[in-house]
C-alpha cells in the first residue's frame, strides 16, 4: 500500500508545487520573449519579494502538514478544523498586510533589492511588484489549501486547479502584455490566475462532503502561532532561498545585466524542474508525520527507501532532460531579437550545471523533511540554512573569484553535493553507523516505536484470511504474557473490524482492496491499527441505535478503551486501544 500511496502523493505533490513555479516560469518566458533583457533583469530583482510571498504560504502549509497530520492521526476533528480556520484567517490578514506594505513602498523596496532608484530596470521592477502583490491572498491561499486537499484525497481537483491556473496565466499574459504598462500587466496576470486556481479549489471546500469546516469562532491566535512554529523549518528554507538569490544577484551585478538575466532564466527553469524535489519533500513530510505518530519504524524506513529510489530515477531523468533542452530554454526566454548572445550562452551553460544538482537535492529533501516530521526541528533548520544558503553562496563566492560568472553557476550542484556529504558525515558521527545502514539515517530516538518482537503486522485481502489472523493475534498476545481473556478480546477486535471492513468496504470495485493490521504491545496498553484503501468510511460513528447488524462494531467499542478514526492520504485509519493483563 505504501508504494502506491507514494506514487499517488508524489504526483499530486509535484503537480501542486507547480502552482507557484508554473506562473513564475510562464511569466519569465513571456517577459523575456516580448519585453527583452532589461525586463528579464527586473523580474530577477523582484524575485526575492515573490519568494517571500511563497515563503509565508509555504511556512503555513508545512505547519499544517505537521500539525494536522497529528490531529488527524488522533481523530481530533475539532483541532483539525481549528487549524483550517486559523490558517485561512492567517492568510487573509498577512496577505492584506503584504499588499499594504509592498505597493505604497515599492520604490524603496526596489532600490534595496539592487535595481536602483531610477531607470528602465527600476521602473519595470516596481511595476511588476505592484501587479503581483494584488495576487498575494490567492498565491498564499493556494499554498495553504494544497495540504488540506491532499489530506482530503482531492488530488484530481488539485490537478485541475493547477491546469486551470496555467491556462489562464498564459491567456492573461498575452492579453495584458498589450497594456501601456506591460510589466504591471504581467504581474497582474499571475495574480488573476492564482484567483482562478482558488475558485476551482473552492468547489471542494464549499461542498457538503468537505471534511474541513471554517468557523470564525475556531480561529485561534494560539493555533496560528502553532502552525507557524511547526512550519518554521520550512521558513528557514524559503528565507535561505530569498537570501541566496539576493546574494547571487549582487555577485552577478558586477558582470552586467546579461548575467542577472541569465540567472533569472536558470532559477525559473531550475525551480520548475525542482518541483520534483518539492514533491518528494512534501511526501516525506506528510507520510513521515503519519508514520511517526504511529511509531511505525518499518513504515518510515520503507518510505525513505522508496523515496530515495524515486529521487535517483526522477532526478536523473529530469537532469538529462534539462541538460538536453538548455539551449532551447535559453533561446525561449532570451530570443535573439530581445537579448544578447552572451546572456543566452550563460543561461544555457548555467542550466546544464544546474542539472547536476537535482539528484543530491532530492535526497537532501527526503532527509530534511523526514527529520521535520519526526520533530528534529533544530536539525531541519540547520540543514535548511546550510543547504539553502551557506554552502551554495560559499561555492558561488569562491568559484566566481577565478571563474567569473561560470563559477556562480556552480552554486546549486556544488551546494547540494556538499550538503549531502555533510549530512552523511553527521549521521555517521551521531550514530556510529553508515548512513545507509538500517534505520541509522532516520536518527530516531532509542525508545521510538516498539521492538520487532512486540509488533504483529498482517495484510488481509479476503474474508478467508480473517479467522487465521485472529488466531495469530491471540497466540501473539498469549506468548507475551497476556491473560487468555485479554488475548481473546484483542483477537475479537481484529476479527470484528476486519470483517466490518471487508463486508462494507471491499465490495465496491475499483483497485484491489487491502486491509493492513498492526498489533503493538506498549508498556501500558495494546494498540491495534487498521488501515484500508476503501472509500471513506468511519465505522465508529456509524453504529445505528438498536440495529443488530452493527453487533461487531458495538462489541469492539465495548471492549476498547479508546477508538480513533481518521481519513487521510486516501486511507481509512482506525486505532483501538485496549488495557493490558
Amino acid at each position, binding site marked *: 500500500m505504501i508504494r502506491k500511496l507514494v506514487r499517488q502523493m508524489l504526483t499530486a505533490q509535484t503537480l501542486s508545487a507547480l502552482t507557484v513555479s508554473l506562473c513564475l516560469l510562464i511569466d519569465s518566458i513571456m517577459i523575456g520573449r516580448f519585453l527583452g533583457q532589461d525586463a528579464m533583469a527586473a523580474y530577477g530583482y523582484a524575485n526575492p519579494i515573490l519568494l517571500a510571498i511563497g515563503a509565508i504560504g509555504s511556512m503555513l502549509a508545512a505547519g499544517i502538514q505537521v500539525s494536522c497530520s497529528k490531529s488527524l492521526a488522533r481523530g481530533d476533528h475539532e483541532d483539525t478544523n481549528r487549524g483550517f480556520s486559523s490558517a485561512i484567517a492567517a492568510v487573509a490578514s498577512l496577505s492584506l498586510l503584504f499588499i499594504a506594505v509592498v505597493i505604497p513602498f515599492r520604490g524603496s523596496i526596489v532600490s534595496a533589492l539592487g535595481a536602483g532608484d531610477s531607470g528602465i530596470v527600476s521602473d519595470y521592477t516596481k511595476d511588476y511588484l505592484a501587479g503581483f502583490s494584488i495576487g498575494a491572498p490567492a498565491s498564499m491561499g493556494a499554498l495553504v489549501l494544497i495540504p488540506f486537499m491532499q489530506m482530503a484525497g482531492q488530488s484530481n481537483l488539485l490537478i485541475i486547479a493547477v491546469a486551470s491556473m496555467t491556462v489562464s496565466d498564459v491567456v492573461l499574459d498575452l492579453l495584458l502584455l498589450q497594456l501601456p504598462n506591460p510589466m504591471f500587466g504581467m504581474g497582474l496576470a499571475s495574480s488573476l490566475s492564482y484567483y482562478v486556481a482558488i475558485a476551482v479549489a473552492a468547489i471542494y471546500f464549499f461542498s457538503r462532503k468537505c471534511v474541513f469546516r471554517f468557523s470564525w469562532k475556531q480561529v485561534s491566535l494560539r493555533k496560528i502561532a502553532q502552525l507557524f512554529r511547526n512550519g518554521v523549518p520550512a521558513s528557514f528554507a524559503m528565507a535561505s532561498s530569498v537570501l541566496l538569490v539576493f546574494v547571487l544577484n549582487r555577485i552577478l551585478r558586477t558582470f552586467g545585466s546579461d548575467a542577472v538575466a541569465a540567472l533569472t532564466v536558470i532559477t525559473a527553469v531550475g525551480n520548475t524542474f525542482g518541483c520534483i524535489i518539492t514533491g518528494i519533500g512534501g511526501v516525506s513530510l506528510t507520510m513521515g508525520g503519519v508514520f511517526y505518530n504511529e511509531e511505525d519504524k518499518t513504515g518510515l524506513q520503507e518510505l525513505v527507501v522508496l523515496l530515495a529510489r524515486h529521487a535517483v530515477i526522477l532526478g536523473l531523468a529530469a537532469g538529462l532532460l534539462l541538460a538536453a533542452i538548455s539551449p532551447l530554454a535559453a533561446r525561449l526566454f532570451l530570443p535573439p531579437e530581445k537579448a544578447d548572445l552572451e546572456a543566452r550562452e550563460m543561461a544555457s551553460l548555467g542550466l546544464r550545471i544546474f542539472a547536476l544538482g537535482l539528484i543530491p537535492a532530492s535526497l537532501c529533501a527526503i532527509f530534511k523533511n523526514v527529520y521535520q516530521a519526526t520533530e528534529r526541528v533544530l536539525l531541519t533548520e540547520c540543514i535548511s540554512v546550510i543547504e539553502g544558503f551557506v554552502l551554495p553562496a560559499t561555492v558561488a563566492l569562491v568559484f566566481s573569484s577565478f571563474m567569473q560568472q561560470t563559477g556562480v553557476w556552480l552554486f546549486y550542484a556544488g551546494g547540494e553535493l556538499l550538503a549531502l556529504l555533510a549530512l552523511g558525515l553527521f549521521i555517521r558521527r551521531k550514530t556510529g553507523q553508515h548512513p545507509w545502514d538500517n534505520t541509522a539515517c532516520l536518527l530516531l530516538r532509542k525508545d521510538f516505536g516498539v521492538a520487532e518482537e512486540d509488533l504483529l503486522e498482517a495484510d488481509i485481502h479476503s*474474508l478467508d484470511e480473517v479467522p487465521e489472523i485472529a488466531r495469530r493475534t491471540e497466540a501473539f498476545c498469549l506468548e507475551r504474557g497476556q491473560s487468555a*481473556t485479554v488475548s*481473546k478480546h484483542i483477537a475479537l477486535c481484529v476479527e470484528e473490524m476486519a470483517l466490518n471492513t471487508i463486508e462494507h468496504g471491499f465490495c465496491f470495485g475499483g483497485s484491489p482492496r487491502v486491509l493492513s493490521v498492526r498489533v503493538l504491545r506498549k508498556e501500558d496498553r495494546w494498540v491495534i491499527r487498521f488501515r484500508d484503501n476503501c472509500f471513506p468510511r468511519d465505522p465508529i460513528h456509524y453504529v445505528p441505535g438498536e440495529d*443488530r447488524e452493527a453487533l461487531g462494531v458495538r462489541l469492539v467499542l*465495548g471492549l476498547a478503551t479508546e477508538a480513533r478514526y481518521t481519513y487521510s492520504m486516501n486511507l481509512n485509519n482506525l486505532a483501538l486501544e485496549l488495557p493490558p493483563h
Partner: protein
Amino acid sequence: MTITKTQNGTTLTVALEGRLDTMTSPDLEAELNRSLDGIDSLIFDFTKLDYISSAGLRVLLAAHKQMSTRDGMTVTNVNEVVQEVFDVTGFADILTIE
C-alpha cells in the same frame, strides 16, 4: 469447532467446543436448521467454548427468536470471555444465561 448434540424428549442440548467465529458459525447454523424440528426447549452448553464473535451471536439470536415461540432457549456454563461479550453487546439482557 466440535458440535455435540444430545436429545432428551423434546429438549435438545448442544455442546460447543472450540471457537464460534466467522468460519464455524455457518456449521452451527446448519446443524440447528436440521435439528430444531419437534424441539420445544434448546440448551447450549458452553463449558468448552472459549471464543465467540458477532457471527456466533447472530446464530444464537436467530435460534433464540425461533425458540421464543416454544419453551425457550438457555445458555449454560459461560466462561469469562463469552460472558463479557454478552454483557458488552446487551445479549446478557436478551438471553437466559445460567
